[in-house]
């Protein structure tokens, strides 16, 4: 049995036996959706439909329907891409890095955080594909033998690194998630009655791959989880580093900086944890998981947000310092223009939402409040979106020739696609919350005795 210090607060509240955990995890799958679920689902579905129409119009007409112009030739699409990829990072951090660090509190949130990762990467991957203009030729990015005169991709290009990084990240995340899901699907399968719901029983029987929980299987399961965590950890850091190299390997002032990889990875974790909080605070209400996703989990995540937010702030200031210290006029102008040029308001939103408001988490009553955390997590989501917007648009809109200087304003379609992906993300997440075991119950049962409140208070 695993031991834990008695002074630590319990991670599972209430009197929970193994069977209670089984019931609580299976309840959303077996029961009917409540009112909140339907309201959220309908809203998300409307946004999703708007997104589908916008994407269809873009593909049918061409990307000229976006607000892009000759100078600002990358804007919302790449902003949204980086934003979504960044959000995905927290899921892998929770499931892999915290596993390696043996952080037990990850167990009631890792399943949902990984689901969030997968759904966020799906949204992110949409943007480069739409931006290709001819998405039916998207397979050109893969190294497949072809008839176009042995035309291969250029392995020196960061865009191709991105293709490899994101497809590896996506598929490894899905596998990691599924390996953990197999025992939990088996639990649901064994609860389903073959006479009352034969279809469901068959579905979960199919999904659970015939898992039965033999000792040898568990032994392999634990080792495979550990090795996958070990592989996913450098993977997650590589993905956002490579995304940042899309910018850092170019010669645009404001992009051409060596600080980008660590700065982007930190920003990704920062925004990802904020999105995990936004989702989990909603989810614990919608599927009644108040005993498992506790104020302790929120507090721990807030501490990570405080840390990464402060590091991101340090990176902003380092960037400003380096642009001055470099002595390069263009660099200096790029950063001065960010803070005081026509997009000063975007820079101000970025600074206040990412650097200032997370500092409120130094106060214990704020970082242990669900309401405050929910509001501040939305702030971080907004701030991190603006960070990418500031980096991308302000660096481009003042081109090398003043005659080509211009501004960017999004079109109706730009907005539609962005909100559409938010809708799509929530549609996927809400469906997940009704079909999948939302808590890694097999793992969670291993800590009931060391960290359940009933057992803690007995001692």
């Amino acid at each position, binding site marked *: 049995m695993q031991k834990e210090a008695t002074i630590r607060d319990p991670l599972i509240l209430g009197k929970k036996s193994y069977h209670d955990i089984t019931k609580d995890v299976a309840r959303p799958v077996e029961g009917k959706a409540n009112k909140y679920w339907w309201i959220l689902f309908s809203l998300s579905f409307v946004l999703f439909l708007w997104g589908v129409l916008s994407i269809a119009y873009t593909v049918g007409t061409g990307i000229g329907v976006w607000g892009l112009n000759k100078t600002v030739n990358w804007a919302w699409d790449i902003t949204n891409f980086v934003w979504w990829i960044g959000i995905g990072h927290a899921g892998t951090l929770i499931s892999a890095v915290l596993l390696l660090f043996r952080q037990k509190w990850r167990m009631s949130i890792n399943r949902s955080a990984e689901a969030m990762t997968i759904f966020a990467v799906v949204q992110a991957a949409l943007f480069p594909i739409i931006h290709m203009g001819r998405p039916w030729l998207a397979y050109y990015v893969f190294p497949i033998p072809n008839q176009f005169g042995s035309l291969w991709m250029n392995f020196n290009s960061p865009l191709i690194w991105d293709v490899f990084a994101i497809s590896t990240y996506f598929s490894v995340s899905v596998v990691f998630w599924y390996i953990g899901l197999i025992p939990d699907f088996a639990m649901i399968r064994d609860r389903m009655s073959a006479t009352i719901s034969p279809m469901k029983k068959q579905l979960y029987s199919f999904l659970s*791959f015939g898992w*039965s929980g033999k000792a040898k299987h568990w032994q392999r399961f634990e080792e495979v989880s550990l090795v996958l965590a070990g592989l996913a950890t450098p993977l997650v850091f590589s993905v956002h580093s490579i995304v940042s190299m899309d910018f850092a390997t170019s010669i645009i002032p404001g992009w051409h900086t060596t600080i980008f990889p660590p700065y982007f990875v930190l920003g990704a974790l920062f925004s990802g944890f904020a999105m995990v909080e936004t989702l989990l605070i909603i989810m614990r209400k919608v599927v009644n998981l108040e005993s498992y996703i506790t104020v302790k989990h929120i507090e721990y995540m807030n501490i990570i947000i405080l840390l990464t937010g402060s590091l991101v702030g340090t990176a902003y200031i380092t960037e400003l310092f380096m642009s001055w210290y470099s002595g390069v006029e263009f660099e200096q102008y790029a950063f001065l223009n960010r803070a005081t040029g026509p997009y000063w308001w975007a820079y101000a939103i970025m600074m206040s939402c990412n650097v200032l408001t997370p500092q409120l988490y130094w106060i214990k009553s704020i970082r242990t409040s669900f309401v405050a955390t929910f509001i501040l997590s939305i702030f971080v989501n907004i701030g991190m979106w603006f960070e990418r917007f500031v980096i991308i648009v302000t660096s481009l809109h003042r081109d090398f020739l003043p005659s080509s200087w211009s501004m960017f304003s999004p079109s109706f379609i730009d907005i539609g696609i962005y909100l559409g992906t938010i809708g799509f993300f929530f549609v996927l997440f809400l469906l997940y919350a009704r079909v999948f075991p939302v808590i890694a119950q097999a793992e969670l049962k291993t800590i009931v005795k060391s960290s359940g409140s009933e057992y803690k208070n007995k001692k």
Partner: protein
Amino acid sequence: MSTNTIYGIFDDEEVLLSSVKEIRSNNIEIKEVYSPFPVHGLDKALGLKETRMAITSFIYGCLGLTLGSLMIYYMMQVDWPQNIGGKPNWTFYHNVPAFVPVLFECTVLFAAHLMSITYLFRNGLFPGAKSDSPDERTTDDKFLMEIEVEGDASAIKEILKKTGASEINEKDF
């Protein structure tokens, strides 16, 4: 003489663990243990060998690195060499820093996926496979020990009962 299978069902993993140790010290072979979650120390108590999953992953990773290098070498050096931005591109080793990201991703891709496939294959898990657990409650909150005996089983049942089994079932073949 007929072969019987005895199922000892336990409610608690610590009781199960001490029972496993007791039974094995009496030189009785345990056929299988089913549990709802990984029980810490159970593999050692049962005398299971260490799993070699991590080793397979390392081998697959090396394979991925090799295949990735060969792929890039063939595409960038052999089949269609290109001068890209005047960067040194005449040999593979001159150009390898730019290939590191893709080589790394190939390594991880192979290591993770092939290990997972090996894991599923070795465990006999695949879509449509049927669970062979003798009791459906073993994925919920019960721990089940399966022992095959030839002839008289009363001694084993006695030990099981003494070490805290909550239920003891028997199946004839």
